[in-house]
């Protein structure tokens, strides 16, 4: 019986403790509430004071205007920087295109000179010259002339026209002859020329300013509208490299012939 009583007393104390803690918590809440209310009143007072005091408003307005101005200034700076960056991007893009074009041009020039010097067979060299003029320059009718004897230019290969139809030419006479004498590539109006005495381009082939022949263009491919900077570079490559390639191939074939003759004599002597 006494056990039950003491148990009940303990439970009662626990309930009282819980109630006491609840009361303390409520008290704390009330105190906090009071503090917040006081702060609110203080803020309302400050606001009312500010509203009543035009100087404070003016100060606040000036401060805010200053901040707006700063932000606008910052915005303008960012816009200017953005424009600068965009301009820089455009310059890089343009430069990239220029480099790409330069790269393509160099590839064309490299391929042309590589192919010209890839063989010592004269027929092959002539074939390469024709290929370059058709595929890289875009000519439809043209001829390769070689200097025979002292001053006669003779057509040795042609495209778009029978070789026999082409006139021989004397150095110093006519468009072809004058350009060869001057050892300078000469271009006329790239409208098609019906007259084989009047080519639209003459590229003299020369070794150390000594002419050995020429390439004469008479008509461009239908889709080719005119000459580009790359075409003029190709004219230079052809003028120099085709000349040396043809010269080297001729020398090689002559030396081959001589070597065969000598070998024939040696074989005869040995018998």
């Amino acid at each position: 019986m006494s056990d039950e009583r003491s148990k009940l007393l303990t439970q009662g104390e626990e309930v009282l403790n819980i109630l006491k803690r609840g009361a303390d918590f409520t008290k704390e809440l009330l105190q906090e509430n009071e503090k917040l209310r006081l702060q609110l009143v203080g803020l309302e007072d400050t606001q009312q004071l500010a509203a009543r005091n035009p100087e404070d408003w003016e100060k606040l307005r000036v401060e805010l205007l200053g901040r707006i101005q700063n932000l606008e200034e910052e915005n303008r700076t960012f816009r200017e920087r953005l424009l600068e960056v965009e301009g820089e991007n455009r310059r890089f893009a343009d430069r990239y295109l220029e480099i790409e074009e330069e790269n393509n041009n160099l590839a064309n020039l490299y391929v042309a000179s590589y192919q010209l010097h890839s063989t010592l067979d004269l027929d092959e060299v002539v074939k390469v010259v024709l290929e370059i003029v058709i595929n890289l320059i875009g000519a439809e009718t043209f001829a390769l002339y070689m200097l025979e004897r002292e001053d006669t230019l003779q057509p040795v290969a042609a495209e778009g026209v029978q070789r026999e139809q082409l006139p021989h030419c004397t150095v110093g006479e006519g468009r072809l002859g004058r350009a060869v004498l001057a050892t300078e590539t000469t271009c006329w109006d790239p409208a098609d020329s019906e007259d084989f005495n009047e080519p639209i381009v003459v590229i003299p082939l020369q070794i150390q300013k000594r002419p050995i022949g020429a390439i004469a263009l008479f008509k461009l491919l239908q889709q080719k509208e005119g000459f580009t900077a790359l075409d003029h570079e190709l004219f230079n490559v052809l003028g120099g490299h085709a000349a040396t390639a043809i010269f080297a191939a001729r020398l090689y074939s002559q030396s081959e012939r001589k070597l065969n003759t000598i070998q024939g004599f040696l074989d005869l002597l040995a018998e």
Partner: protein
Amino acid sequence: MEKRRVLIVEDSPTMRQLLVFALRRLKNVEIVEAQDGMDGLRKVSSDHFDLALIDINMPVMDGLKLISLMREEDSLKQIPVVVITTEGAQEDRERALKLGANEYLTKPIQANRVLSVARDLLKLD
């Protein structure tokens, strides 16, 4: 990424070298060369290709014949074909496109144009 294979069918070594130079700039692309239409047909029939660049005027078998043979063959008809030629007339273009060419480029070629067309047809980024 799987390698893409491109076949160049062109009789001029100069043009072949120039096209190889241009296409080498594409990543993951393997280039195979053929020197005429017959050589091209042999190569395209014996191996897988994702693109063919074909010249029209060639000895042994011309480009148009090669394209028509490719378009008749089930295993080859899906291969995109780019014609590269000196023939700039509209009727030549129409004839090639009618035969099944996907693009028609005229000489002298612009490397950038070849690259852009190849990128499109190979579906490269």
